Each structure stands twice: as C-alpha cells, then as structure tokens.
C-alpha cells in the first residue's frame, strides 16, 4: 500500500498495516489482479470511517469466498482450463481427506476381524464395502497420478518455473509418510491371522493402513491416556497428518501449474466421476456400520465417537468432492 485512498490524505503506517492484513484473506492470484485497486478502496473507506467491524468481517468472508472460488468450489465460474485444474486439485484434496478417514475406519474393522468375525451384518457389510471401495479408490488414484507425474517430470525437464519446490514438497512429505508408517506399523495390534477378511486385506496392508492413520484417534480428547503413550508414537500421530497435508499441498500446486493436454483432462475427468461414485458407495458402507450397529457388537467392532466424527468428516469431504467434480465436468463440457 503505497499511496492514499483519498487525494491529499496521508496513510498512517497503522492503516497501511490494516489494509495489508485484510488483503491477506484473498488468494495470491486475486491480489495480483485486484490487490492495488482494492487496497485503494479500503484506504478510502477507512479515511471516511476508520473503524468498522462489519466491513472487516465482509472482507474476511469475501476473501475466503475468493479462495473457494479459486479452488473451483463456488458458483462463480472460472475460465474452463482454470476451472478444470482447480476442480481436480480440490477434488484430490477432498478425496485424500475422505480416504484418510475411510482407511482409519477400515483399519479398525480389519484389525478386529483379525481376532474374530463380527457378530452383526452391519459391521460385516461395512467392512466388505469399505474394503472394495478403498481398493478401487487406491487403484484410481494410482492410474490418475502416473500420467500427471509423467507430465510434471517432462515440464520440470523443460525447466518450467514453479514446479520444483511443490514437487519436492510432495515427494518429501510422501517419503516421510511411507517411512514413518513402515516404522510404526510394527506396533500393529492385529494377529496376521487367517479370517475371511484376511484374504481381502493382508496383514501387512492392514498394518500399513493402521499406522498411517494413527492420528485419527479418540485419545486426543483424553490427554491423560495419551501421555502414557511412547513419545515417538505421539509425535507420529501429530506429524503424519502434516505429512499428508504436505503431499496434498504439493500436488495441488503442481496440478494448478501444469498445462494439461485435452486428452489427459478428459481421462482425468472420467476418473473423477468414477472416484466420486465409489466414494459415495464407500460412505454408504461406513454409514451402515457406524449408524447400524447393534448392542451385540463388542471391542473394535463397536463404533465410537471418533467413528461418528470420522463419518461426518467423510460426508463433508464427499460434498466438497462432488461439488468439485461437477465443476470439472461442467468445465470439460464448456471447453
């Protein structure tokens, strides 16, 4: 903020700071386009009325709205190319959050099944649906990431700016996630036994899912019990979501900065639609267990508060994913 909003008026350092702080609610691309003129408007408004909490809240809310718009999640349409890239990035993040909670839920059920078969149809159906759905989502994720990684590698080889740091962030975070998970999966409470579910989810995979989602735990609201955990395990519970966020943030930045060929975009759009449908099935499976449990279920088959919270977060993530997917499909038709 370098000049006055009203001709002749001086801008105090304090006002300049307030304007800069308010501008930070908006995403960088919005600030590049509208930042200067919006700062001028704010300065003029502040010259007229120095303090106005409603104005502050209005700017904060619209700044967050601009961020959602940039993520392709509002009715404000972006140009088709931007809409597709933003929508795919938002969809990836939403499905990553959805997947983390779904894997946490399945790992709890899979661990229980290592010891004994569930006594209720809801837990049985929930486990089987989640197993198939998460397997399909993992497969879709793999076939989506491979061509995007190839495109990113070619762009980096051509020295396209702005790709190295996000790629390094995603790769480092993924490495931390895998190495940490491999280390902590040694503490998996399963048996490696021979139940029916063991055929679908091998012990190693169940242990990996368990260790990667240790952070999804009700122990966070029981600090006394959490304090009895070994310190490295608590540190991992705090670090692993950050690592997952690092993977997602890196991939989002890469996806937003790549120029996708139209064929690849169409391919990703088909995968997007398929992943959304499977996520719906997955949520139905999780809900059938969490909401349909009876009094006969015990131990790991008894859904707790953390499972209900997980189900709510999965539902919210799915709403975001479906919204992003519909934006991607609309943009694909408009392109």
């Amino acid at each position: 903020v370098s000049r006055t909003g009203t001709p002749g008026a001086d801008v105090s350092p304090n006002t300049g700071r307030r304007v800069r702080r308010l501008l930070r609610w908006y995403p960088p691309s919005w600030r590049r386009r509208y930042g200067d003129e919006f700062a001028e408007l704010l300065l003029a408004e502040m010259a007229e009325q120095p303090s106005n909490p409603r104005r502050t809240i209005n700017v904060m809310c619209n700044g967050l709205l601009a961020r959602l718009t940039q993520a392709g999640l509002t009715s404000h349409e972006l140009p088709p190319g931007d809409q597709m890239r933003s929508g795919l990035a938002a969809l990836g993040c939403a499905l990553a959050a959805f997947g983390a909670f779904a894997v946490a839920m399945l790992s709890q059920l899979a661990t229980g099944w290592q010891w004994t078969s569930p006594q209720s149809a809801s837990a049985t159906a929930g486990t089987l649906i989640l197993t198939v759905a998460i397997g399909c989502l993992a497969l879709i994720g793999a076939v989506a990431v491979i061509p995007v990684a190839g495109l990113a590698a070619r762009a980096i080889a051509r020295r396209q700016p702005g790709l190295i740091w996000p790629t390094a962030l995603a790769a480092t975070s993924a490495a931390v996630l895998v190495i940490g998970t491999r280390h902590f999966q040694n503490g998996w409470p399963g048996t490696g036994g021979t139940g029916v579910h063991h055929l679908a989810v091998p012990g190693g995979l169940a242990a990996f899912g368990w260790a990667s989602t240790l952070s999804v735990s009700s122990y966070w609201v029981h600090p006394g019990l959490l304090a009895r955990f070994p310190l490295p395990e608590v540190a991992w519970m705090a670090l692993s979501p950050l690592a997952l966020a690092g993977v997602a943030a890196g991939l989002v930045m890469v996806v937003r900065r790549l120029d996708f060929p139209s064929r690849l975009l169409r391919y990703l759009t088909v995968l997007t639609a398929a992943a959304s449908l499977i996520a719906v099935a997955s949520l139905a499976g999780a809900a059938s267990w969490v909401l349909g449990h009876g009094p006969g279920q015990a131990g790991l088959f008894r859904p707790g508060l953390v499972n209900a919270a997980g189900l709510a977060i999965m539902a919210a993530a799915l709403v975001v994913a479906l919204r992003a997917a519909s934006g991607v499909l609309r943009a694909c038709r408009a392109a």
Partner: protein
Amino acid sequence: VPHGAVDHGPLVTFGRYAGPATLILSSLAGGAKHGYALTKDIEQFAGVRLAPGTLYEALSRLEGQGLIEAVPSDDRRRPYQLTTAGAQALRVHLADQRRVAEVGLRRLSKTWGSA
C-alpha cells in the same frame, strides 16, 4: 434459450450477487467509475452502501462474464466500464424487474387501493 422459455439474461446466474451486480451495472451505465466512486454513486441513487468485499466479488464476477471491463489507467484506482453485453444484460434484467414491479403495484392498487 429453449423455445417458449423467457430469457432472463446472465444476471440470474449471479445468485445472491444479482442485487449488487444490478446496482454496479446501473451505476456504470452512467459512465466509467472506480471502486470508491461506484460505492458513493450507488449509495446516492439506491440508498445502499456496498461493502468493499461484496463490491469486488460482484465486480470480478461481472468482469469474468464479460459484462464490464477495466479501463486502461495509470491510476491505482482502476476504473470499470460497461461492455455491450453488459448493457444488454442490464436492459433485460431491468425490464424483468419492471414487469414484476408493475404487476405488484397493479395488484396492490386493486386490492388495497392507491396510497
């Protein structure tokens, strides 16, 4: 627009920003203005003070739809002007509003008498 359907113009897709968008377009119909001049003009003719965030959300939507455009300027307070598409959209939207207002006033007058 499908056969037989009424074209309400692009502003109906603005949702809750249709109101601010109409006010902005109406203000720009009188000539190019920057953000603060728009705020003051709208306050004067409509009695509504658009908050800065709302104003710029509507401005960016209108610009994205090609209904307004930025005027090249060295001033940091960038002015905006109506495009031909914007003028047409405003005309359609105001005609719609006038139709609604006329129906409402006619029915009020018939049932409740004139004020």
